[in-house]
C-alpha cells in the first residue's frame, strides 16, 4: 500500500464525514484536533503490520465514501430489530442519532444519552473518561474515530444500581458508500450492574464502512455484560475497537457475534487494573462466501488475583477466512492470575481457512494460564451418535455445526435477540429441521 493510497483513503473517510462543527467544549475540540493530527501522521494498517498480517484492507482503501444524507427512517422498518426486553434504546441511522426512534430510560440510576446531550449534562465526567481507554496515539483507525467524534452513545449506571433491563444501542445502516464512526462510552460506577447491547445492522446490501470505538469502564465491584452483534451487510467493512478497564473485583462479560461484513476486524482490549477482577470473553464468527472476520483480543492482567476466561469460536464456510489472535499478558507481580483461553474453529469447506494464534506473555510465576486451539472438522463420534438416532450424515453435520455456533449465541442474555440469532445460525448451517 503506497502512502498516496493511504492518504486517499483517509481523505475519503474524512470526506465521508459531515464535517465536525466546533463543540462548545474546548477540551473536545482539542481532543479531536490531536486525534486528527495523529490520524494524518499514522499510516493506515496494511498486511505489513504484524497485527494485520492476515487482514488485507486494500479493498476498503479502494472504496470511496461520501457523507450520509439525512433521511429519516420509518419506525416500521426498525420494528423487526427491536428487542422488547431491553429498557432504554438508542438508535443511530447512518451514524446520526435518531431521537424519534430511541427510547431514553426513566429508571433511576441509569443515564443513557446521545453524546451531544451527555456533553452538556456530564461534561466534566466525559472529559475525564473519553479517549482514556481507547488510545488513539498508536492506532490510525481509533484516531480517525476520535477525530470525528460527534454522535455516539453514553451509558452510565450509578453507584450500586442494578439495572435489570438491557440498554440496546442500534446502529442501522440505510445508505451505501457512507463511512460512520460510532462512539460508545459505558461507565459502571462502583457496585453497579448493567447489560449493554451494541447492535450493527443494515437495511440494504451495499458497501459502507463502520469504524467504531467503544470504551467501557467498570468500577470496583461493578459488573457489565456487553453484547456486540455485528450483522452488517455482506459488502460492508466493519472495524471496531472495544477498550475495557476493570477496577478491583469488577466483572466484565462479553458476547461478541460476527455474522456480517465483507471484512470485519474486532479488537477487544481488556485491562485488569484492580485486584480480583474477572472477565469472560465469548466470541463467535460465522462466515461464508468470501467474508473475512478477524478478532484480536488482549487481556492485560496488570495486578494480582485476576481471572479471565475466553471462548472464541469461528465457523468458516465457502472461501471465508477467520482470524483470531488472543493475547494474554500477565505482568510481573500479577500473581495468582487464573487465565483460560480456548480457540475453536470449524471449517466447512476445503477453501475456507482459519488463522488462530494464542499469544501468552507471562511475567509472573504463581499463575494458571491454560490455552488451547483446535481447527478442524466435526467430531466423528458425535456424527455417529446422531446417525445412530436416524439422522442422515448431512443432517448430523448441519446439526453439529448449528450446535457449535448456537452454544455461543445461547449465552446472550436477551431471549428475543438470542432467538433471532439462532434463526440466522439455523439458516446459515442448513440445520433447518431443528426449527420445524
Amino acid at each position: 500500500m503506497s502512502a498516496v493510497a493511504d492518504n486517499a483513503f483517509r481523505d475519503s473517510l474524512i470526506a465521508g464525514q459531515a464535517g465536525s462543527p466546533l463543540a462548545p467544549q474546548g477540551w473536545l475540540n482539542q481532543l479531536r484536533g490531536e486525534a486528527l493530527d495523529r490520524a494524518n501522521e499514522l499510516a493506515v494498517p496494511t498486511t505489513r503490520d504484524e497485527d494485520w498480517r492476515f487482514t488485507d484492507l486494500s479493498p476498503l482503501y479502494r472504496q470511496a465514501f461520501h457523507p450520509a444524507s439525512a433521511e429519516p427512517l420509518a419506525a416500521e422498518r426498525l420494528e423487526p430489530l427491536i428487542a422488547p426486553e431491553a429498557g432504554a434504546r438508542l438508535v443511530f441511522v447512518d451514524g446520526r442519532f435518531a431521537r424519534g426512534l430511541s427510547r431514553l430510560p426513566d429508571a433511576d440510576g441509569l443515564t443513557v444519552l446521545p453524546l451531544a446531550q451527555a456533553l452538556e449534562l456530564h461534561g466534566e465526567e466525559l472529559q475525564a473518561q473519553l479517549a482514556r481507554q481507547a488510545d488513539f496515539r498508536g492506532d490510525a483507525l481509533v484516531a480517525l474515530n476520535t477525530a470525528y467524534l460527534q454522535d455516539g452513545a453514553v451509558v452510565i449506571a450509578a453507584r450500586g444500581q442494578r439495572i435489570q433491563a438491557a440498554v440496546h444501542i442500534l446502529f442501522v445502516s440505510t445508505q451505501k458508500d457512507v463511512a460512520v464512526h460510532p462512539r460508545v462510552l459505558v461507565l459502571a460506577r462502583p457496585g453497579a450492574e448493567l447489560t449493554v447491547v451494541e447492535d450493527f445492522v443494515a437495511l440494504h446490501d451495499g458497501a459502507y464502512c463502520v469504524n467504531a470505538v467503544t470504551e467501557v469502564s467498570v468500577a470496583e465491584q461493578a459488573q457489565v455484560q456487553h453484547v456486540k452483534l455485528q450483522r452488517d451487510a455482506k459488502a460492508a467493512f466493519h472495524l471496531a475497537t472495544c477498550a475495557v478497564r476493570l477496577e478491583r473485583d469488577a466483572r466484565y462479560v462479553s458476547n461478541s457475534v460476527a455474522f456480517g461484513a465483507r471484512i470485519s476486524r474486532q479488537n477487544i482490549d481488556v485491562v485488569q487494573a484492580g485486584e480480583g477482577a474477572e472477565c469472560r470473553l465469548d466470541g463467535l464468527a460465522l462466515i461464508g462466501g468470501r467474508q473475512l472476520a478477524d478478532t484480536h483480543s488482549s487481556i492485560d492482567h496488570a495486578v494480582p488475583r485476576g481471572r479471565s476466561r475466553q471462548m472464541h469460536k469461528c465457523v468458516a464456510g465457502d472461501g471465508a477466512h477467520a482470524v483470531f489472535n488472543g493475547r494474554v499478558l500477565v505482568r510481573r507481580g500479577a500473581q495468582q492470575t487464573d487465565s483460560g483461553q480456548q480457540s475453536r474453529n470449524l471449517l466447512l469447506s476445503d477453501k475456507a481457512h482459519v488463522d488462530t494464534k494464542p499469544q501468552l506473555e507471562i511475567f509472573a510465576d504463581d499463575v494458571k494460564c491454560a490455552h488451547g486451539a483446535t481447527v478442524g472438522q466435526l467430531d466423528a463420534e458425535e456424527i455417529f451418535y446422531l446417525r445412530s438416532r436416524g439422522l442422515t450424515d448431512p443432517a448430523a453435520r448441519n446439526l453439529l455445526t448449528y450446535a457449535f455456533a448456537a452454544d455461543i449465541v445461547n449465552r446472550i442474555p436477551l431471549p428475543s435477540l438470542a432467538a433471532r440469532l439462532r434463526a440466522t445460525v439455523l439458516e446459515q448451517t442448513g440445520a433447518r429441521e431443528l426449527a420445524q
Partner: protein
Amino acid sequence: MIDSGAKILLEVKKLAATVGGVPILKGIDITVRVGEVHAIMGPNGSGKSTFAKVLAGHPSYQVTGGEAAFDGNDLFALAPEERARAGLFLGFQYPVEVPGVANSQFLRLTYNTVQGARGRDELDPLEFDDFVREKMKLLEMDPAFLDRSVNEGFSGGEKKRNEILQMALLEPKLAVLDETDSGLDIDALRVVAGGVNALRQPDNAVVLVTHYQRLLNYIVPDYVHVMEGGRIIKTGGKELAVELESRGYDWVAGDGREAA
C-alpha cells in the same frame, strides 16, 4: 422368554471386524429372536463393545467377514441411520454431549425423523412435549432435562436415563445397550433397568453388553454369552452370569480353552 419358534430378529454368522487394520472380532455367531433378552459378557478388551458398535454401523470399524441379517435385511448394507430407522437402537456407553442444542429439540428431531421414515405421523412441539414428558416418568427424569443441552453436564446416571428415554421414543425392534450399567449407583440402576423392562414387548428384543452380573439381577436374560478374544466362547442361561460373578472370567476362559 425362550420360544424357539419365534421370529428371528438378528442372525449374525462368522462376523469378523477390524479397527485400524487390527482384528477385534474373529468370528461371532449369534441368533436373537423376538421376545428374547441376551447378555453379552466378558472382560475388558474381549470385543463386546466393538460388537455393539459394529451392529450399529460405527465408521471406525471395518467388517471383514461374515454376515448379519436384521429383520430379514442385510444389516451391513445399511447406513447407520438406515439401521436406526429399520429399528436398531444402540444405547451408548458414553453418550455424546451436544452443547447448543436443547435436549427437547434433539429428541423431537430424532423422533420425527424416525417416525417419518416409518411412514408414521410426526409431532409438533406441543404434542411432542406432552408425549416426551409421559415417557420421562418411566425413567423418573425431571422435565428440566428437556431444556438443557443434550447430555451436557448430565451425570453418568442422567446420561444413561436419557439413552433409555431415546429408546422409549424410538421404539426399536432390537435395542443393543452397551454398558448401560456402568457408572450407575444402585438407585439409578434400578430405574434404568425398570425402564428397559417396561419397554419389552413380544415383538422386540434386547441385547445387553455388560461387564458385571449386577444389571442382570434387574433385567433377567434368557441367554448369557461370554466373549473372549473376539469370540463367543460360552453360551448359557442366566445361571451362567451368577457363576461368572463368583468364579471370574478366568474360569470360563480356561474352560473355553479346554473345550477347544
